[in-house]
């Protein structure tokens, strides 16, 4: 959004960004390259993607007020796609330096975007108002890229804890947009002419993760046995119900993204209890109890666990569902002595190199030299073919080493009222180029 143009060296080792002129911050100050350098340094210190970039960064400099250069020790072909994300936002240098690794305070919410932060009343609303000084790009809008025009005077984000009240509020016209809405309201929302029900694809995928640091599932055959013991699509249905909101698919990234790959995933959703039993015997399984951490706080979490438990018991495994609230589950899953399996969801529209489970310290503890290699390949790839090759290798590795078993995709349900015009159904919503009738 903020650059006029950029040049990338063919080897992916250096980048030169030319900034747009005439960009002002919400406080009226002019944006310069010093602000960009300070903001990206903060991004490199606190954000997961930023850290991946800064690990291989050699230097970031501002040769003049409208130019930023970045040079790398190892190729960083992924840089443009990471910088395009909202989290690599630009603040005034003084704010970025003062905030450091700390969370920004409301006084520090000074950006360059089409809407300005006005007020946050905890649990009541967060209010953004139009930035009249905003200078849009000239290109036609394309997803989040291109021209952004703030038409609305203000946007209020209102937390509504009860999901059926949230849906009713849209039906009654109290709110213009709602996210997420309960799947039970799908029929009611889609049959109402005053609004549109939106199914957001891609969104999230879900998988039981194995504890690979200690216990039974350090053994790869046992992990494969679990995968073959149950139908992934049935588990998905058990967890989420509505057909409109699910998709049985083995890829880490949704098919709508450029990062889709089902390489090596032939075993997905081909349950084979006999083969699973053979793998159990091969892996030396001896009736040990599998502790599966789950919670009623998210209905799907328990429903999938409960379904898979029955399937595992059918091939002779012993499974104990360990129930707690989500907060305790998050604590317990960090403790490698506490469990064998837990289930969680992951974004399917993020770059695969940034999935949290790639980090061997993340619960599940996936240590693998081959994984380090392919993740590096994905980050350094400077052209589409190299990236595609790396992502295929990553997918193959996941289906071979089986750090988790992907059950499938779940899409979120949203709704928007007819009087709202120009809204685009993207995974992360935005309200520029949007107006009210």
């Amino acid at each position, binding site marked *: 959004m903020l650059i006029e143009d950029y040049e990338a060296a063919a080897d992916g080792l250096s980048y030169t960004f030319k900034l747009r002129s005439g960009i002002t911050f919400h406080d009226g100050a002019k944006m310069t390259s010093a602000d960009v350098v300070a903001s990206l340094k903060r991004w490199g210190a606190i954000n*997961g993607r930023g850290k991946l970039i800064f690990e291989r960064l050699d230097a970031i400099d501002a040769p003049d007020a409208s130019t930023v250069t970045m040079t790398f020790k190892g190729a960083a072909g992924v840089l443009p796609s990471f910088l395009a994300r909202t989290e690599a936002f630009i603040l005034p240098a003084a704010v970025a330096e003062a905030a450091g690794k700390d*969370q920004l*305070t409301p006084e520090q919410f000074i950006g360059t975007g089409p809407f300005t932060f006005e007020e946050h*009343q*905890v*649990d*009541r609303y967060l209010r953004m108002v139009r930035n009249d000084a905003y200078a849009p790009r000239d290109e036609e809008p394309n997803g989040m890229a291109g021209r952004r025009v703030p038409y609305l005077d203000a946007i209020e984000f*209102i*937390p*509504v*804890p*009860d999901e*059926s*009240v949230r849906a*009713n*509020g849209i*039906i*009654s*016209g*109290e709110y213009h947009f709602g996210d997420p809405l309960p799947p039970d309201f799908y029929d009611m929302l889609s049959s109402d002419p005053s609004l549109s029900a939106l199914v957001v694809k891609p969104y999230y995928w879900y998988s039981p993760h194995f504890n690979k640091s200690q216990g039974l599932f350090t053994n790869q055959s046992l992990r494969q046995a679990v995968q073959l013991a149950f139908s992934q699509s049935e588990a998905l249905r058990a967890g989420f119900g509505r057909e409109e909101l699910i998709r049985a698919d083995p890829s880490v990234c949704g098919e709508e993204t450029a990062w889709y790959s089902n390489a090596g995933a032939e075993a997905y959703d081909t349950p084979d209890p006999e083969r699973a039993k053979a793998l159990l015997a091969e892996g030396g399984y001896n009736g040990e109890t599998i502790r599966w951490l789950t919670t009623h706080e998210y209905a799907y979490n328990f429903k999938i666990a409960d379904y898979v438990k029955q399937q595992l018991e059918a091939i002779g495994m012993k499974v104990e569902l360990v129930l*707690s*609230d*989500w*907060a*305790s589950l*998050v*604590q*317990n899953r*960090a403790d490698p002595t506490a469990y064998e399996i837990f289930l*969680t969801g992951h974004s399917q529209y993020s770059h695969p190199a940034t999935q*949290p489970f790639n*980090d061997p*310290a*993340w*619960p599940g503890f996936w240590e693998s030299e081959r994984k380090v290699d392919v993740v590096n390949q994905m980050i350094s790839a400077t052209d589409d073919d190299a990236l595609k090759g790396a992502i295929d290798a990553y997918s193959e590795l996941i289906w071979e080493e089986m750090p988790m078993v992907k059950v499938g995709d779940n899409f979120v349900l949203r709704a928007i009222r007819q009087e709202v015009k120009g809204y685009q159904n993207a995974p992360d919503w935005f309200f520029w180029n949007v107006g009210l009738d």
Partner: protein
Amino acid sequence: MTSYVLRRLLATIPVMLMVATGVFLLLKLTPGDPAGIILGPDATEERREELRDSLGLNDPLPEQYLRWLGDAARGDLGDSLFLNQSVTSSLAERAEPTLLLTFFATLVAVVVGLPLGIIAARRRGSWTDVGTMGVAIVGISMPTFWLGLNLILIFAVKLKWLPVAGYAPLSDGLWESLRYIILPALTLGVAQAALLARMTRSMMLEVLTSDYVRTARAKGVGEFRVVIGHAFRNALLPVINVIGLIVAALLGGAVVTEQIFNIPGIGRLLIQAVGRRDVPLVQGTVLVIAAIYVLVNLVVDIVAAALDPRIRRA
């Protein structure tokens, strides 16, 4: 009377101390790591340890306890781990919606419950009595969330008379604020009205059969004066106790109602704080709720003592 009030005030100190200790221990014994929740699922163990250190969660328990108790005694309940504000100011912010909701729900309870109870008692055994008490049973048994959702469906979604949910502070104007508070106050008030009606009825029945009521009737006092002037005044004491309990319970936050109607009150604050393991906020909120209970009980006792000399002499 003064010595009675003083005695009662002193007695609240050990109660508050016990509550404070109980709350502290209970939370320390509950599993769940606030650092893990603040930092989100993707945080490293190292970063979590760092944060636990800076929050003082790694200090020995007695040290944490004394520090918290000392601060609380000075009115400093610490800082919320999530809200970027102190516990006292987040409680102060939530006080207005909870006070308003309590006031109007109690109003519904009193305006509906008392007359129904009196009428039912007066017409004991009649269809009016059976009918009112039947409705009261339904009122008590109805789950709040069910009643709340149905009221929303009827008055907000279908009829569009009132907003679905939300809250407008009094500073936005009384009517604006009332529009938001009517449905939740009804939701909460119905169950309390039913409870109050049943209590009032049984108290009135006891009094209506007593000798002085018969005497009053015998000397030709009008029926209205008998029921309201003689009987109801004497049935009032236990009824005031029940109203006190209702007020205390509502001030402590109506979790379900606040959640459904999206009212930023004390109940919702507490439930969120528990879910996030925002320990200082939970401790502070429970302590304040306990203080409210103790205080309301104190007020009820003092009112009762003022109404009935037998109590203050005891």
